[in-house]
Structure formats: C-alpha cells, structure tokens
C-alpha cells in the first residue's frame, strides 16, 4: 500500500495532479448546484411576495 502511495518517488507529482483535478470536478458540481438552488429559492421568494401582495390587496377590497 505504501509503495502505491509512494508512486516510485513521484508521489507529490501524481497525487497533486490527481488531487487538483478531483477538486476541480467537485468544486464545479458544488458550485453549479448552489447556483441552481439559489435560482429556485429566488423564484420561490418572488412567488411568495406576489402572493402576499395579492392577498393584501384582496383584503383591502
């Protein structure tokens, strides 16, 4: 196992390359999910605002 991690002496190179790539993939997934979620929340909030505004005007009438 330790021989595997050692990578014939090239451990820092191999693992940093693979690590950075993995990090990039994970970051992309996380960031895009966040964007999507925030967009849906924004849509939900605007619906609530419209609904409460409509209810307020109905009550006035």
């Amino acid at each position: 196992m330790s021989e595997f991690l050692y990578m014939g002496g090239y451990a820092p190179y191999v693992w940093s390359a693979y690590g950075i790539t993995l990090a990039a993939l994970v970051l992309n997934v996380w960031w895009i999910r966040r964007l999507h979620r925030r967009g849906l929340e924004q849509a939900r909030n605007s619906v609530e605002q419209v609904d409460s505004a409509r209810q307020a005007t109905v009550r006035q009438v």
Partner: protein
Amino acid sequence: MKLPRWFHLLGSSPYVYRLAGRLSPWLGAVGCGLIAVGVFWGLVIAPPDYLQGDASRIIYIHPQTAYVGMQAYVVLAIAAAIGFIWRLKLAHAVAVSAAPIGASFTLCALVTGSIWGAPTWGTFWEWTDPRIMFELLLLFLFLGYMALRAAFEDRDKADRVSAILGVVGVVNVPIIHYSVLWWNTLHQGPTIMKFDEPSMTTDMLIPFLLTMFGFMVFFYWLLLKRLRAEIVDREQGTRWLRELVTEGSQ
C-alpha cells in the same frame, strides 16, 4: 420546409429544462463511473512507463482535461453562433454554461501539465512550447468571453456581443491540436487522434480511453446542470417557473 417537432421543442425553455433534468442523472452516473474505473485502472492496474516511471500515470488525466476543455470551447462557439444567427436565447444559455466549465478544465490541463512537466521535461513551464501557449490562450478566451458578458447590463446585448468573440476565438482550437505537427514542441505527436493505429499499448490505452470518455460525459453532465441553473436565472418571473417551484417538484 416543415421543421420537425423536436426542433421547435428545443427552443422552449421549460421543455429543455425538463429534458436536461431527466438526462442529467444518467450522464452523471456514467461520467462518474467511467472516471472512477479509469482512474483506478490507471493508478493501480496499468504498468508504469519504462522512462517516466509512475509519473506517467498523469497521462490518464492531463490530455483528457485538455481535450474536454477544447471541446467545451467548440460547444461554446457553435452554441453562440446558433444563438446569434437564429436569435435563440437557449443557445446563448448553452454558451454561457459551457464557459466556466471549459475554463476550469483548461486550467486543470495547464496545472496538471505543469506538474507533469517538472519531473519529465525538467521544467514547470516552457514559454516557447506552442501547445502550452495556445492552451493558455484558450483559457484567456474563456475568461475574456465571461468578462465581456459581465461588462454589459443588457443580457441580450451581452449574449450577442460575446457570441462574436466566442466565434472568432474558435480558430484557436485547431491550432492547439495541430501545433504538435506544425512545430517542434516538447509535446509528443498525436497518439490517438490520427488516421492510424494508436501508438499506445493496450494496457495504457484502456484506462486512457476510459477517462477520456468519462471526462467528456462528466462535462456534458455539468453542462446540463449549469444550463438548468441558467434557464432558471433567465426565466425568473415566468409562469412556468412559478408553477414549477410551487408544485414542490424539482
């Protein structure tokens, strides 16, 4: 000429949103699976190179990220051109989605290439290598596309102006590909993308292709997810989106 139905459907945001949502989990599963198998194969099963030793294992991620980055730019350019010519907002949405993902893959390619170059070429960077330089230019093109968009307040204008830049820059992609043929570079010549037998042994070729397809499918997964987020952003206030968020399903 009567256009097929799917052609019209692809111009409809709610349809594309739902279609992307249905395709996305499959792409994600296949992409992650291929990458996982390919990486495992490349790190564990594949033999080390007789010259480079275990450092050669970077061959299972570096060319892949570079290639997918180039493909991302082609997707951006084609989508931007379609959006510009036929005034299809969804096409522009695809281009917008491709840009940040392509930029991060290209950055990955530059970084992994630099790490790989240190023990094998003896240098982290080489300003006179054309392939490195044009790959760097590709990164600047992605960033330039995003920066130009950000400078415009009107989204429609941002779409159309940045589309021109996107299309102009696509000439860089074949330059990157052929740079190893046109110049004497540190990079070796093409091993896969040529009209010949691949010059790689099978036990390295398999993980190489696994990760290549894996990264490609992963890119399209990310693209569809980003496209969905982009559609939500552009369609704020529309009725279909309001109904979508109130019915509680995603």
